[in-house]
């Protein structure tokens, strides 16, 4: 630790304003602040501050997604770790490049995007497509808007939808059957490419044909699907953690799940043949993962607390409508993206209403 500290201190002058490598300053700063807490002192009141910073905020999200990641590795093999590395590397390069060009700090938000991205993809997707997707997502979903905090869409989602629209056959051909044994895929070697033979249908596709998979398999995640989305158990573990530590907005989550389940129940009551029951729809596909980890992304959801209710209700309802009545079997991604589009609008309405009250109070 001491050695590391003195090493960083020795290197510091190189990266400072007039140093030889001053252009790479953001990289040095990111490394420096990764290992040691930021050295800045407060200049205005309050002179003492709350210890929470963006780094910790983002690392809490990553901790919450960890169970889903572990489940993904268990069911679909170590290949998932490889896709994660590719996602971090490719997206990281874009992030760092923009930080250096803009002469801004490197933002921690990317660590979450890069972590989520491989988990919402079919586990057998070729690695180069993972890279293409994440680069597109970070570039178009975030950097063109001016970086973390200014983006309208969830960058991971943008990348995912780009792949779904741009490479539909690769995407649908990349599902892997989950491992069944006690050790899952933990003991099998990494498969770089996945033979077509192992691809199979996801629960939602099967449901269209009238087959409902058993609840236990869905709950544990022993089904085909996007790498991190299959295990209800893992998602709940992480999701509840996020709510307890106060990082995810419980309003968004509750609103999505309630509106989704409510509308689902009504539709199932009216059209039992076309619409699957609530328990099945909740535990299959990407709705849970989306509700807990994607719709709650604070930047791309409404910023007002009451706006979050409207946003959640919208996403939940649209997801079930797409699932039930369109050619797509999964609607969560599109619904969240639509929610992202509406978020500023919802905020505007909430803020205008508030403004009227402020005018009264004056």
């Amino acid at each position, binding site marked *: 630790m001491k050695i590391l*500290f003195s090493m960083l201190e020795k290197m510091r002058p190189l990266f400072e304003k007039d140093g030889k490598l001053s252009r790479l300053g953001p990289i040095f700063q990111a490394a420096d602040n990764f290992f040691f807490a*930021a050295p800045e002192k*407060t200049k205005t*009141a309050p*002179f003492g501050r709350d210890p929470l*910073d963006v780094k910790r905020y983002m690392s809490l999200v990553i901790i919450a997604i960890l169970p889903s990641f572990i489940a993904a590795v268990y069911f679909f093999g170590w290949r998932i770790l490889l896709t994660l590395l590719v996602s971090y590397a490719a997206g990281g390069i874009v992030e760092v490049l923009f930080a250096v060009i803009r002469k801004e700090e490197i933002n921690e938000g990317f660590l979450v995007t890069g972590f989520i991205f491989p988990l919402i993809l079919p586990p057998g997707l070729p690695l180069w497509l993972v890279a293409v997707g994440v680069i597109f997502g970070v570039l178009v979903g975030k950097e063109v808007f001016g970086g973390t905090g200014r983006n309208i869409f969830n960058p991971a989602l943008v990348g995912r939808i780009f792949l779904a629209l741009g490479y539909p056959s690769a995407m649908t051909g990349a599902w892997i059957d989950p491992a069944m044994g006690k050790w899952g895929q933990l003991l099998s070697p990494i498969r770089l490419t996945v033979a077509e033979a192992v691809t199979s249908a996801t629960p939602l596709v099967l449901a269209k044909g009238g087959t409902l998979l058993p609840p236990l398999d869905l709950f544990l995640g022993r089904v085909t699907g996007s790498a991190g989305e299959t295990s209800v158990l893992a998602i709940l573990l992480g999701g509840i953690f996020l709510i307890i530590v106060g990082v995810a907005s419980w309003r968004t989550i509750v609103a999505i799940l309630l509106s989704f389940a409510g509308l689902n129940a009504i539709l199932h009551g009216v059209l039992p043949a076309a619409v699957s029951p609530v328990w099945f729809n909740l535990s299959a596909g990407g709705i849970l993962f989306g509700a807990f980890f994607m719709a709650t992304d604070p930047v791309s959801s409404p910023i007002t607390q009451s706006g979050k209710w409207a946003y959640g209700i919208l996403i939940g309802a649209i997801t079930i409508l797409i699932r039930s009545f369109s050619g797509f079997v999964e609607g969560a991604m599109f619904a969240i993206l639509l929610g992202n589009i509406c978020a500023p609008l919802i905020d505007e309405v909430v803020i205008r209403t508030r403004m009227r009250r402020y005018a009264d109070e004056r």
Partner: protein
Amino acid sequence: MKIHGGYTPKISGKPKSNVEELPLPGVLQLSLERGGLSYKPIVKNGQKVEFGDSLAEASLNGGTLLLPSPASAKVTLIQNNGKKSLALEVSDAGIIIGKYEKFQPQRITAEKMRQALAKGGIWPLFWSSRTGEIPALTETRLPKAIIVNCILTEPFRARGKVILRRSWNRIVAGIRFLPRLLVDYGTIQIILTARHDPVARMMYVDLAGHALVRFHSVPLLYPIENPRILSQAIRKSDSSFKKDDVIWAIDVQGVEALGACLAEGLPLYQRVVAAGGPGHSSPKHLCVRIGTPVTALMSEDNKPGGGKPPESLILRGGLIRGEPVDSVTGAVQYDDDAFFFLPSAAERQFISFMRPGFDRTSYLPCFASRITGAPDRHISTMQRGEKRPCIACGLCESACPARLIPQVLHRYLYRESLDEAEKAGLNLCVNCGLCTYICPSKIELQKQFLEAREQIRLEHEEIAAAASSKSEKNENSI
């Protein structure tokens, strides 16, 4: 009395609740610029004054406020970087009871009371909802209610209970005088933690029969002590208040001084201050003469060269609103009640964002201290994180006691649209600083709001000036 938002961080170094009397130091330092007032000395350099003699005066909307001497002493006028102050070389430590006229609550007239309070140096401790500052001495619109606030939640202001226990009789005497300042059928609103607590009950008994007194209990959340928050809550709790009814507020130490002034003829001469925070090695309440230098508040090993805890930044006021005072020349002034010792040197913690955080407390329940209940021992003048663009986490909104959405204001101001910011409630901000305190992106929201308001004020003034010069021109041309 439901109050929105608020948060009181749990910090180590909470002052003990006994009050230690500090011996009178040889020299007292009185600042002539306090609380937005600027006093002009009315004594000469080298002049000898007696306890309670007037040292300086300040004018306030037509009236004159006086600054009484807290001790018998020889006066030296000092000018330091354009800041004027008085140094008093104490010649006699005694106080003179009955230095001023003594009164009975039933006999005193409102006019006499105001004069006595202006002379005793107590008037500036009042706050008026009409001005947002000290009420004018000649104010004709009398308050419909006076709030007596016994709760100070900011770490670590002198606690109301400590003062109540210490100066019970003076406080009760003070409350008996207050109705003189009200309109007919106005009320005294006493703010306490809980109605059933022994102090509240005692007050209930002692003030029984005073139809004008009302009790309120409020949650212990910063910034409940803010007079604007309190007066808003009082208005909401009682529908008989009209929008433009005036409310005044004073805190419990102010009432104590008021009681001492009117019933015993004493000027404002001492304060109970809390000296605490992680940088203080024996945090406690101290009763000190006004003008006591801050060095006297330090414990032995805090003093320069004393060794133990790391050097501290001394904040006048609490942790959140406090401003640094010079540890050499700073002194306790008539409106001080707290000095926070904030450690200034801190190590850069190794991978701090991954540590469980047993020694740190946060607004979000994401540090291990939330489970153990340990206070924050790690707080210092470090910013504790890097500045980042707003991540829209919404913490500022949930903490804001004025029900604003600070991040929206921040966005408007970032785009420099002052108009929108004004519409979004910028002027309702009570400057509590909580949003800045908790923002994980370390954005200095409150400072930004303060500057924007100043800018708006200047613009309005310019417009008004332009309008008046225009009308003048018109008149001339006619």
